[in-house]
């Protein structure tokens, strides 16, 4: 029987890798992938608690999170396309138009 803490530990490790990726990556698409990785780590926690407590709500919440992730991917990638069209670059250091 796998203990609950193993799932939580794996989820924490994946979330940390995603958070590190968001801060060290320069490419907008890579940053976006790391955000998806963090969403998946949170999903693993929800499914683990749902399985161990026999409560369905966690899995229904994961369903909603996946829908939000799909919507986020569609809108986010559209923003990335439009930024690339205007700036010819995906490097987030170049996107400093709002900087004083």
């Amino acid at each position, binding site marked *: 029987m796998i*203990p609950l803490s*193993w799932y939580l530990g794996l989820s924490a490790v994946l979330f940390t890798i*995603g958070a590190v990726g968001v801060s060290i*990556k320069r490419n907008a698409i890579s940053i976006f992938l*790391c955000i998806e990785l963090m969403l998946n780590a949170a999903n*693993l926690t929800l499914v683990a608690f749902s*399985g161990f407590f026999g409560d*369905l709500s966690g899995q229904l919440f994961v369903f909603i999170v996946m829908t939000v992730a799909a919507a986020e991917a569609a*809108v986010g990638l559209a923003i990335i396309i439009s930024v690339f069209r205007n700036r010819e670059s995906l490097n987030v250091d170049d996107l400093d138009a709002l900087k004083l």
Partner: protein
Amino acid sequence: MEKALFIVLAVIAVASALNILLQRNPLYSALSFIGTLAALSALYITLRAHFIAAIQIIVYAGAIMVLFVFVIMLLNAPGDQPRVDKQKGLRYLAIPFAGALIAEAFYVIRSVKPISMPALIDGDRGVGSTWSIGTGLFTQYLLPFEVTSVLILMAIVGAMVLAKREND
């Protein structure tokens, strides 16, 4: 046996997640992320969340990652540039903060009570089956389910408006 399976799947998930960070080309990062998704899907099956495991493969690895790979190939952008060295002093501050974070994580993980999964009672209608998810979504969680469809409609319209060229 189950623990060995968990360790194999966890190693696959963490290794392909680390590979996302190590690759400079976002296309290889995206392909590596599919490995993480597949390992997580197998872990969902060990938690008896069969519907979520199937949806993970169909929606994430199927739909969302195809969208990512499509955009990466459409833009054909250069890979990640090497990072610029600014604020070097913060690097030394990072070590104590990381140490504190790891200590906190260990403290929390150690204090998780060892509970075991409830026995499988209802057979193929238990928690995590397609039957239970469908019943939950269309009775108790009907409103969030309907709001989700509005959200997806907004995402479709938003994506089309954002990706359209401005001059036509």
